[in-house]
């Protein structure tokens, strides 16, 4: 299982859980499995073509997937994935 950290803005979709465990072998797989468990989350993370939106980062063990293999980044048991929303303000 992969431990996924869920940021505050997405917790309404995960029954307020800040951390969830998901079985996945790649980031794409992880996003699809998150969507099955928590419908609506994929659209927040990815655009219509499945690419990561520019106002979110996904880190695997502190490395941005944009510097790994993007959605094809492989995952193994024990990896920690953090979904990080954009820094923002008003």
């Amino acid at each position: 299982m992969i431990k996924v950290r869920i940021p505050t803005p997405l917790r309404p979709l995960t029954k307020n859980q800040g951390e969830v465990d998901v079985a996945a072998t790649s980031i794409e797989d992880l996003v699809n499995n998150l969507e099955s468990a928590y419908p609506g989350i994929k659209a927040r993370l990815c655009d219509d073509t499945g690419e990561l939106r520019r106002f979110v980062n996904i880190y695997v063990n502190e490395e941005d997937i944009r510097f790994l293999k993007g959605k094809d980044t492989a995952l193994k048991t024990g990896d920690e994935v953090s979904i990080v929303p954009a820094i923002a303000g008003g």
Partner: protein
Amino acid sequence: MTELVIPRAIIDDMIAHAKELAPHECCGLLAGTGGIVGRIYRITNIVAMEGAQHLSSFDTAKAAHLERLSPAERAEIAFVMDMQDFSAAKKDMRQRGLDLLVVYHSHPHDPARPSVTDIKIATDYEEIWPKINLPVPSYLLISLMDAEPDVRNYWIKSGQVSPAPFTVR
């Protein structure tokens, strides 16, 4: 805690950034070593991008307010950092051995103090910084509401705001 030092050239660069984008808000990062800022990273404000307001910890009222505005108008009252730019900056800092010291943004029409939204989002972000291997930065505001730009820096911790003094050299 080491007092922050910001070179005059970097203060001027931030003010220039704010003026270039006014009436829209600008945003960016300052990095350095030993509390001395050595580098500025301008980050694109993508608040006008569809869906940005849903993933940025904006409270319901602020998100609703943003939705009522045109995309161009949204950038007058808010910023959302382009996380591609952010990641590139983070990588550059790591390669140069710099620490993230400051997150800055402008208030084109308002004073140089954190808004309710700024405080809420910074508080939400406190738990994220260590997870992405970055120190908790201070938050710098550039106000353009008066003829003379006003630049102030703050710590935002657990919903509390306190001044974070800095020296200009």
